[in-house]
Structure formats: structure tokens, C-alpha cells
């Protein structure tokens, strides 16, 4: 992996995609309000929010399917509204779901979309097919593909034009864990090796945490926070612990002295305890457990749920 070849820390980051004050109204309802963010070359940018938060509407504006009522989209500095064709020449995308022509083969789909690009795109078909591991099934009809294969074919399609920006809407949706891992690895590789700016939307915090460098959190059509993923997740995840102990009830009693603790499973025998304690008191709490004769089998940091992140960034407003 030559991940370090991409200019990231040294120079000022190169902005390839920027949303400026995007607003979209449907009747009286404002589905997206004043959403702004920049996506840099070579990074994976997460767009995190619960379903119905306005993610897909924002994406539709990013790729010119819907016109913003206010604000604008710039791709490599080109205003999407005025320079649609040149701007979209830099973009590959999957909006909502990887919909391709099911009655055509994978190859025919790629040929079809290569004809909508400058000459030379068709020459990349076999290279891209092997990149997304579809070479063997490329001449089968798409209707016989699994969702994961369609997702990968969709990504190959999006890469046909050698884009600088790749926009993926909920790429993990409906995939099994192996499929999710595969897509994640592919996305990281595209950003690291080709310097592509990848924009990924998701409603799963864990997904964004494992895939993205930076994240914008959107809720009810507004961006609540934008920043590096680590910062955001650490803010809420640092005090959550899950322990597997015996006996669980005794452990909960001991831990309650350091913060908050409750038994999650079997209370008398070996069980799980969820605790919330400040990071600095964790070593002391573990010594206290040992002193109280509690057997500790495992201690792990529990992942904050998206709800907890929202609670944190909104300061308690309900999701």
C-alpha cells in the first residue's frame, strides 16, 4: 500500500467537491437546510445521519438530479448548475441503490455507460471488472447478480470515467458482513491509491467509523457537526465499557461506586455488565473488582450508538 503517496498532511488539502449552503424545500417542509461541507482529494468523507435526515436529497443535489432552492455545488471548482457536463465528467456515483439494466449483462451495462463518456472509457472495462472482482460473471445478466455484485458493478460503472469524486449512497445497505468488508476495503483503496475523494453516506456510526477519515453529521436536514471521525467518536465512546464477569451482580455493585453500571444479562452467574465510567478511573475499578473476588473474562469499549452521538452533539435533543 502506497497510501502515503497521497498528499494529505503536508500541503493544504485540495477541495474537489464542495456543497455551499444547500437548501431544498418540498412544499412547506425543508428537507435540507443550509448544508455545507468540503470533500478533499484522497479522503473518505462520511455523511452520517438517520434515515430520513436528508442524506439522499443532498446527494441528489450533489449530482444534479435535483436543483437546490438555495446554495450551490462545486466540483473541481465548476458550478454544477452552470457547467453540468464538465462538472459531472469528474464524478462517478451510485444514488440510493445500484440500479443497472437487469436485462443486460454486466459487460453490456459497462459498455452502455462508457458510451456516455469521452472515448477511451470502454478500454477500462476489463481492468475495472477485475478491480471489483466481477471478471468471471461479467457476461451474465445483471438479474442473476446478488446485491453485493450489483453494488460492485455499480462501483465499476462509477469508475469508468476516471472520476476525481466518487459518491456512494449507503453502500453497505443490504450487504452481508463479508460484502460490507469488501466494499470498505475497496473504498479505502480507491482513496489511498488513486487519490479519489470518496463521499459515503450511511446511517451506521460503526460503518462510518471504520471507513471514513472525516464525517459530517446530518439530522433533520441540518449538519450538526463536521470533523475527523476519531474526534467525534472518542467524544462519546470513551466512557462506555462492556464487561463479561462472574458474578455479574456483584460486579455491577462494585462498578457503581465509580460511575454508572447495570447488568445486561444473567445476574448470578457469568454475565454482561454495561458500565459508564471516566477513562481515568478504569484501572482502579478493575483492581476493585479483583479485590471483591469477581472473575473478569473480558473488558471492551462499547461502541457508542448513533443515538448517543446525536445526544452528545445536540445536547440532549431527541432523535
Amino acid at each position, binding site marked *: 500500500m502506497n497510501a502515503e503517496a497521497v498528499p494529505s498532511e503536508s500541503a493544504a488539502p485540495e477541495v474537489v467537491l464542495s456543497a455551499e449552503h444547500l437548501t431544498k424545500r418540498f412544499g412547506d417542509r425543508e428537507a435540507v437546510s443550509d448544508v455545507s461541507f468540503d470533500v478533499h482529494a484522497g479522503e473518505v468523507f462520511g455523511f452520517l445521519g438517520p434515515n430520513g435526515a436528508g442524506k439522499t436529497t443532498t446527494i441528489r443535489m450533489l*449530482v444534479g438530479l435535483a436543483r437546490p432552492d438555495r446554495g450551490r455545488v462545486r466540483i473541481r471548482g465548476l458550478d454544477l448548475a452552470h457547467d453540468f457536463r464538465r462538472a459531472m465528467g469528474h464524478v462517478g456515483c451510485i444514488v440510493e441503490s445500484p440500479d443497472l439494466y437487469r436485462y443486460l449483462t454486466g459487460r453490456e451495462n459497462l459498455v452502455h455507460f462508457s*458510451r456516455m463518456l469521452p*472515448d477511451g472509457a470502454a478500454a477500462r472495462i476489463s481492468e475495472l471488472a477485475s478491480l471489483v472482482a466481477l471478471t468471471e460473471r461479467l457476461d451474465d445478466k445483471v438479474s442473476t447478480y446478488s446485491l453485493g455484485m450489483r453494488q460492485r458493478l455499480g462501483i465499476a460503472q462509477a469508475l469508468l470515467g476516471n472520476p476525481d469524486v466518487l459518491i456512494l449512497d449507503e453502500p453497505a445497505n443490504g450487504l452481508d458482513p463479508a460484502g460490507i468488508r469488501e466494499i470498505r476495503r475497496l473504498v479505502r483503496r480507491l482513496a489511498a491509491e488513486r487519490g479519489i475523494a470518496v463521499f459515503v453516506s450511511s446511517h451506521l456510526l460503526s460503518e462510518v467509523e471504520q471507513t471514513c477519515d472525516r464525517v459530517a453529521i446530518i439530522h433533520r436536514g441540518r449538519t450538526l457537526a463536521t470533523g475527523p471521525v476519531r474526534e467525534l467518536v472518542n467524544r462519546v465512546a470513551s466512557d462506555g465499557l462492556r464487561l463479561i464477569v462472574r458474578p455479574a451482580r456483584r460486579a455491577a455493585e462494585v462498578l457503581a461506586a465509580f460511575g454508572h453500571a447495570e447488568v445486561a444479562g444473567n445476574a448470578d452467574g457469568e454475565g454482561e455488565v454495561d458500565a459508564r465510567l471516566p477513562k481515568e478511573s478504569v484501572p482502579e475499578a478493575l483492581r476493585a473488582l479483583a479485590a471483591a473476588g469477581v472473575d473478569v473474562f473480558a473488558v471492551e469499549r462499547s461502541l457508542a450508538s448513533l443515538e448517543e452521538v446525536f445526544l452528545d452533539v445536540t445536547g440532549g435533543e431527541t432523535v
Partner: protein
Amino acid sequence: MRFSGLVENEILKFSRQRRFRVVILILVALIGLIVFAQARGRERFHNKDWHVETQERMARMQNMLRDNRTPPTWRRWARFELDRLRYHLDHNIDPDAVSGPLFARGFANAASYLLLPLLAIVFASDVVSGEFAQGTIKLLLTRPVGRARVLASKLAALVLAITLTVLFGGIVAYLFGGIAYGYGGWAAPALTGFRVAGERLDPASVRSVLLWQDTILAYGLAWFATLCVGAIALLTSVLLRSTAAAMGTMLAALIAGTILPRLAPTWESQKFLFVTNLPLPDYYSGSPPPITGLTVGFGAAVLAVWAAAAVAAAFAVFVRRDVLA
């Protein structure tokens, strides 16, 4: 990204969908059935000399005209038919002659009412709504190609598909008709230019041309009428974004158009509807038009205006409208 590449895309999608094969099958099956049924009918009734047969028919018309109870619309038709038969008799041309070429020629008239428009609708109503239904519209409109160009490529492919369908129908009609009635006879004389002057046929306008010339003209008119239906169906496909809804709307219009002249022959404004003007080949070959004042030129002009307006509206909506879930 040449325009021809985009048209190639649309042709690829047309040809790989089941509807294309269904249309071909419908044409072959239907024409086969018509030839079979007609040939059997003729065996039973046509043993007489055609001069005698035609004179008998003219006598029946005259009886009908003498009868006071005959309704005015029938009366009009009978007078017209009488003139036409007399003209044929005078020029020694069998009005009911059959041959492969004549069958092919007749198919243009018969098919322009319903069959060809129907097939055009089957193609056109899916052109845009199909992309919405499959979700592929999101890819199609996020490529570095303007929306107007995308729609133009679809229109071009539609014109091609309709042209091939009309051609194919004509060829199949000739091939099947030939099996039953023989393949020769393209050079036979055909009477054309029958025109209604007031309540009567105007014999001055009638010309005799060669059958193959007449056939090309008839198919040209059928093709034009079918194209116009295709353009209007394309608009419904853009507006409704659902193939079923678009097809249903167009079918309803088509059926209403075939019924209306019979139910309300006195309502003259219906001649400005597009459906009333679809049987262009009929108006040209001189069957009495259902509404007075319908001629080939008028019909073609009305259809052209409808088609042009439909295409303009389709582009205006397609280029501007948001694509949402």
C-alpha cells in the same frame, strides 16, 4: 461521446427487452390470422365473374338509397361507394381483386387505425418511464451528457423502432398475402385520389397509378401517423413516469378515437383530435371520411402539430424536472 453512441445505447435497450420480440410476434401472428381467415372467406363467396358481382353490389346500393328508412350517414356512404364501384367498372379494374401486393397495400389502411399506433405505444410509453421504474434514470442523468441530448437519443431510437415496425409489417403482409394470393401484381393499376365533393365522389380527381407507387405512399402515410402517436406516447411517458399509466392513457385515447366518430358523427371539432386523423391511408385512398372536411392534407397537418407540441413539451419537462425517489 458521440450522439450515435447514445442512439446505439437506446437501440441496445430496445432490442434486448421482451417487448420488442412481443411486437414482432404480434405482427406475424395477426397478419397470418387475417390472411388465413380472408382466404377461406373468399373461397366460399367468390366464384362469380367480378363484373357481375360488382353490378349486383351496385344494385344493392341503389336499393338502399331508394329506401326512405336508410339513415343519412349510410346514405352518404352508399352514394360514395356507388360512385367508386362505377368508376372501377368503367375502367375495367376489379375493385375486389386480390394479390399479395394488394393485400400488403390493404394492410397499410387496416393497420393505421389501431394496430400500428398500438405497437408505437408499446414502444414509446416505456422509453422514459422504464428508466424511472428501473432506477436507471439516476445513472443516465448523472453522466456528463446533457438531458436534452439523452432524450434526443431516445427519440431517435424510437423513430427507428417505429420505422422498422411499419416496414416489417408491410413485408410480413406481402409475404403472407403472397402465400395465399400469389406474389405478382405490383405493376397493376391502382385508383387513387378519390375525393369527396359535397356529398358525392369527385371523379375528376381520381388518378390511376401503379400499385407499387400507391403502396409506398400508403405506407408512408401510415408511418407518419404512427410516428405522431409515438411522439405523443413519449410525452405521456415523460409526464407520468409509469409505463402502465402511460400505456393506459394512450390506449384510452386510441379507443375513444375509434368510437367517437361513430357515436357522434355530427361533432365536427373532433377532426382536430389526433386520433381522428390516424387513418391517413384511408383518407388518401378515398373511403368516405367519418367527419366531413377530413382530407389527407388536413389530417397530416393536425397530426404534425400534435406531434411537434408533444415533443416540445416532453423536452421542456424532461430537461427541467427534478428526479426524486
